[in-house]
């Protein structure tokens, strides 16, 4: 748009200034030429007067003084001739070319060449004492050329300066005028794909309000579509949970009644499958809730991370115990700004992943506290870790590391990332030593802390 505006303004401007320069030049030149021609004509008339005064018969003796006066026109050289009707030179330079005067013409001007030099000639036909004579005065064009050069430099340079100044004004003006557009552009470019809030019209120029309003309408529609989709996922997950609860209960009853005593393996498969569906539904709900919003779905509050971590101990201790994994904690009090239930959800997914992927006998440590002027929350395990090549992919929904043994469903880390992004931070995956994974979230400390 800026380019188009500049081109649209600069090209006509250059053409207009160019054409006007050409006209200026031609007018100035014709004026200077007319003045020079007038000088030439004066010389012709001087000669005519001289002849009339002295008479033809005197054979036109020009004394040296008057000839010198006639010829003195430095830096130009002047030549002249006076001929009779038969073309016989009566006075002056012998070899001056003869110019064909138009019939009935009196004073005429010609461009000519004499001794290989460009000349301007004035020819005048007069009748003196019933004898028709023609007077030719010719001068070199040095003065004219000098005038031409002066006109050129005197006219073109200022015009060129005007053109350049106009171009700079256009460039600067367009850039300056489009500055607010750049601000809008930067605002949109800086957004995350989930950020579908309307653009604030107050800070942008009136001219683009109609366009921004359309864009805002589109944002609203996109947001509604995303919300509808997430609502659908949430509703579907809710609807599926109740029959799944029934199924789960029946399986638990079958276990306690010993219904599968002949085929324990089959029961285990059914149990695992059901548990996995339940987990998937829970994660779908979490993901839909975290992803739906784009911005924090609630007013940010002061959240004590150590309390979230402490509560997670009750939730996950049994699962760790059942898998013979040592789940431990290393916490010091720290406050961040955010939504408690979302942060708890993120931590739950990190711990759940760690338990899932750490083999029996392994060790998991959940930490929170302050380090390097930031608050942190991290879960470290000594399981197999995540190979460097998969570090980005694991944040994709439903991505499973090929050959990974566990029954995860590939939504844990995507949920954690959504929640991290809602809190303006990211999930760091760090290799633990000698093996394992350290998943870490860092938050800025609240200002008044």
């Amino acid at each position, binding site marked *: 748009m800026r380019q188009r505006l500049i081109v649209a303004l600069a090209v006509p401007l250059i053409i207009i200034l160019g054409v006007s320069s050409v006209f200026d030049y031609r007018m100035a030149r014709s004026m200077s030429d007319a003045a020079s021609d007038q000088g030439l004509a004066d010389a012709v008339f001087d000669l005519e007067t001289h002849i009339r005064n002295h008479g033809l018969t005197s054979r036109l003796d020009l004394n040296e003084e008057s000839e010198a006066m006639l010829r003195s026109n430095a830096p130009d050289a002047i030549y002249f001739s006076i001929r009779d009707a038969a073309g016989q030179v009566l006075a002056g330079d012998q070899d001056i070319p003869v110019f064909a005067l138009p019939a009935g013409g009196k004073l005429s001007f010609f461009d000519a060449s004499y001794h290989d030099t460009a000349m301007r000639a004035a020819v005048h036909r007069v009748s003196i004492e019933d004898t028709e004579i023609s007077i030719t005065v010719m001068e070199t064009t040095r003065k004219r050329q000098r005038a031409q050069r002066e006109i050129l430099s005197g006219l073109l340079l200022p015009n060129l300066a005007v053109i350049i100044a106009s171009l700079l004004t256009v460039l600067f003006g367009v850039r300056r005028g489009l500055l607010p557009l750049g601000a809008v552009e930067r605002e949109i470019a800086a957004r995350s794909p989930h950020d579908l809030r309307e653009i604030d019209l107050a800070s942008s120029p009136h001219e683009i309000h109609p366009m921004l309003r359309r864009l805002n309408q589109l944002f609203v529609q996109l947001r509604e579509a995303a919300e509808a989709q997430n609502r659908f996922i949430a509703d579907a997950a809710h*609807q599926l949970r*109740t029959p799944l*609860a029934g199924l789960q*209960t029946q399986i638990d009853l079958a276990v306690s009644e010993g219904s599968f005593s002949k085929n324990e393996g089959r029961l285990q498969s059914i149990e695992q499958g059901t548990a996995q569906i339940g987990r998937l539904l829970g994660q779908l709900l979490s993901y839909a809730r975290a992803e739906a919003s784009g911005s924090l779905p609630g007013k940010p509050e002061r959240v004590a991370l150590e309390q979230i971590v402490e509560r997670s*101990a009750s939730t996950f201790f*049994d699962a760790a115990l059942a898998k013979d994994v040592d*789940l*431990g904690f290393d*916490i010091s009090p720290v406050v961040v700004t955010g939504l408690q239930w979302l942060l708890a959800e993120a931590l739950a997914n990190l711990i759940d992943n760690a338990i899932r992927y750490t083999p029996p006998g392994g060790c998991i440590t959940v930490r929170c506290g302050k380090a390097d002027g930031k608050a942190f929350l991290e879960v470290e395990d000594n399981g197999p870790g995540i190979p460097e090549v998969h570090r980005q992919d694991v944040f994709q929904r439903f991505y499973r590391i090929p050959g990974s043994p566990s029954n995860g469903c590939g939504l844990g880390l995507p949920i954690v990332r959504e929640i991290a992004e809602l809190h303006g931070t990211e999930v760091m995956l760090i290799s633990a030593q000698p093996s394992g994974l350290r998943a870490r979230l860092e938050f800025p400390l609240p200002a008044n802390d």
Partner: protein
Amino acid sequence: MRILVVEDEPLVAQGLKQGLVQLGYAVDVAGSAEEAEGFVGVEEFDMALVDIGLPKADGLHFIRQLRAAGKGLPVLILTARDSMEDTVSGLDAGADDYLTKPYRLPEVAARIRALIRRSNAIADACLRHNGLCLDTRSRSAMLDGDALDLTNREWAILEQLLMASPAVVSKDRLVNSLAGWDKDITPNAVEVHVSRLRSKLAAGNVTIRTIRGIGYRVDAPEN
């Protein structure tokens, strides 16, 4: 022990009923809030399991009615919704705890036991847990029928752990609860008391687990 199950989905309701009957509870099933209100109007229950998503009046409405009628029985919410707002409004309405579907029967049973234990502690001032009994009025303790000699600090720690079970109790919270006895008690001192408690409980069926970096938990009873 009589339990009211308020659940409109027959598969879930019947499954819960069978499971709880197997565990020795007497169970009545109501398919709607209105039916449940009819039940509690004429019968006494020790506990209610309430689904939030009921036809017409929802589970929250029923719980509010229950509390408004002055009934203090423990209420466990069973919900297909697990967002924080839903659970908070459930607890605000007067429920004591909640479980998200799909749940496991042993989990439901553990929550029921914990709720009943807490409600009994208020009713008859006794905390019971796998053969352990703490009488909060006489401050006497019994383990499998034998008198158990506990110091004041050991008593306070065990009471906290039993009240919270199956949740984890942080060492800081134990320090705070002991502050009444001992102003300068340190986390290390708590460790010493817990270690003594463990040896006193060794004969019975109650274990105190350490959660590295946080605190302790009295283990959920085995089935």
